[in-house]
């Protein structure tokens, strides 16, 4: 049954399997094992970004396309929820409408972008997606009457998911069972389900064709008609995945805005996660997202200690300054691109063999 659930894509490394199980259990039991608002936020963010990065891996790792428009779809999901909840009231109906609308818009845009990749070189495509994403970001921040502008949209969730709601009178294992807990499990289970769907997609005949296209594209210029179809479908699936991630994130934050979803730094973060975790492995996104979000929240404390210890040495305290955590991830990223294209997952699997 596990085999079917994972669509036959086994971790193929004991260490990797152990790590994945640990992450899964950690996320599943986060409210109970890691109490506190901060840790729950970290867990929710990990869940959301696993899906976001996995959907990007489908595009980059399996189809071999670099797109900078992924955050745009992330944002569409978030704004779909945000605008629906704010304008149409905090009901399940408007939530459903918002999600459906977001998915539809994403699908249309993804189709358009996919068709653009018809005869266009990879670099040209990357530049255009950057411009499109940038345009979308401008729209979101300029059309404040619609999107809340720079401030974004704060909204209320349906009553069942609201933090004030209590489902059980007494706490379960020391944790209050209420809207917040439910919201967390919506995010976690939603992300898990979509991740497994993506896993199924890449392990299907469709996924195998994607891999063979990726190999061929970089060796020859010839493009056949069917390649465009496959890339477009991959583009759409990736976009939908990102949109769902955006929906989940908005549900958790009860807020959506340009800097939580559309900013270029998030696109860079996605790149970091997918490459360090391992391109073309799906599990790489799990690892990458976990490492990144944990680093974002906890590495800085470690670095503060190290920086303090290095006082007196020239330059070192600045290099170890907690705000420079991205520097080290960036270096790790570059090292991975040159030497470990399959990232940590690839390394673990190589060691296992």
């Amino acid at each position, binding site marked *: 049954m596990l085999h079917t659930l994972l669509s036959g894509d086994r971790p193929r490394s004991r260490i990797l399997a152990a790590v994945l199980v640990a992450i899964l259990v950690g996320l599943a039991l986060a409210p109970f094992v890691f109490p506190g608002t901060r840790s729950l936020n970290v867990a929710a963010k990990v869940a959301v970004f696993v899906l976001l990065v996995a959907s990007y891996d489908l595009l980059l790792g399996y189809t*071999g396309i*670099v797109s900078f428009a992924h955050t745009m779809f992330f944002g569409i999901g978030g704004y779909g929820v945000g605008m629906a909840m704010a304008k149409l009231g905090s009901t399940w109906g408007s939530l459903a409408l918002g999600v459906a609308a977001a998915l539809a818009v994403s699908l249309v845009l993804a189709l358009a972008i996919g068709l653009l990749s018809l005869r266009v*070189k*990879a*670099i*040209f495509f*990357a*530049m*255009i997606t*950057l*411009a*499109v994403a*940038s*345009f979308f970001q*401008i*729209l979101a921040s*300029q059309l404040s009457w619609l999107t809340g502008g720079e401030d974004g949209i704060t909204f209320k969730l349906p009553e069942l998911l609201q933090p004030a709601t209590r489902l059980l009178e007494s706490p379960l294992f020391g944790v209050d069972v209420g809207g917040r807990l439910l919201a967390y499990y919506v995010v976690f289970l939603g992300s898990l389900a979509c991740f497994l769907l993506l896993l199924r997609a890449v392990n299907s005949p469709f996924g195998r064709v994607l891999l063979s296209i990726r190999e061929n594209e*970089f060796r020859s210029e010839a493009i056949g008609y069917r390649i465009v179809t496959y890339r477009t479908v991959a583009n759409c699936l990736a976009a939908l995945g990102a949109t769902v991630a955006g929906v989940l994130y908005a549900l958790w934050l009860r807020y959506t805005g340009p800097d939580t979803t559309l900013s*270029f730094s998030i696109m*860079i973060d996605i*790149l*970091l996660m997918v*490459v360090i975790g391992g391109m073309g492995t799906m599990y790489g996104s799990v690892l990458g997202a976990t490492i990144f979000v944990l680093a974002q929240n906890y590495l800085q404390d470690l670095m503060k200690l190290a920086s303090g210890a290095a006082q007196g040495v020239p*330059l070192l305290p*600045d*290099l170890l*300054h907690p*705000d*420079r955590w*991205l*520097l080290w*991830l*960036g*270096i790790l*990223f*570059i090292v991975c*691109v*040159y030497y470990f*294209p399959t990232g940590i997952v690839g390394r673990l699997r190589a060691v296992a063999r």
Partner: protein
Amino acid sequence: MTTADAQVPGRKLDWLPLALVPALALAALLFITSLPTWITLTLAGLAMGMMIFMMASGLTLVFGLMDVMNFAHGVFISIGAYAAASVLVAMKGAMQAPSLAANLSAIVPALLAAIALAGFLGWFFERVVIRPVYGDHLRQILVTMGGLIVFEQLIHVVWGPDIIPLPQPATLSGSFLVGNAALERYRLLAVLVGLAIFAAMWLVLNRTRLGLLIRAGVENAEMVESLGYRIRLVFIAVFVAGSALAGLGGVMWGIYQGSVNAQMGMQVMVLLFIVLIIGGLGSVGGCFVGALLVGLATNYTGYLAPKLALGSSILLMVLVLLWRPRGLYPVGKA
């Protein structure tokens, strides 16, 4: 079907795209009924366009010649700006003095520092970051993005996280009046510098052997090698020159904005890409026309329809692509 109209303005038989610049300006005049305002805006647009051209020309030439899109190009812009900022902050007195000579004694070293540091960084970048991934577009994009992240952080390490203000030199700030129109001195300078650089590039590309090599290399680098030239050296020279130019552009841009910050390179990247796409990847002439169009469009819409201003360049790009899908002056690869 000739590619004779490629790259270089002046030699080209295709003047239509170049005519778009005055066409846009005149069209704007119809909407901006006040002549003095129009003059001010046009100068602002041209100045901005020139600075963008300085920043983008290296990027497009490197792509045309070496088939490398350096997503970290913004780093050279930032470094140039920061290097100059350090010099100018140290020589604040000379900058604020009301004498041109004093100002220049601060500006010239600042510009030289920018060009030198950006050029050196360009050499380092080509050797260490780019060379291992020639020909592999996917890894190029990834690795240069990585370089962008790392170098932006390193700027923070060296120069600190704060924004450094960069005031205009005393004799070049402010404006003088021509009739009713206010012409900013600094913008005039930017236009002059931009034109000078464009003229210099044109001369090199069309009147020197190096330029001949570059133009031929953009078409068919392999053939240039077969004729007995070490095209790799030309690559390096172009990359370094492009980076140095970007550094120069960065300084001027920084002074134009009034400050430098570590993200400035990255912030302007989207604009550079739009200009490259409009002009045609690999075309210096196209880059020039595209940059002017973008500069003008941004300033005109900033006055006429402020909400649209940020998106105006993208809309311009879409319009151009509908007319010429490969940009204004596509560089045909033989």
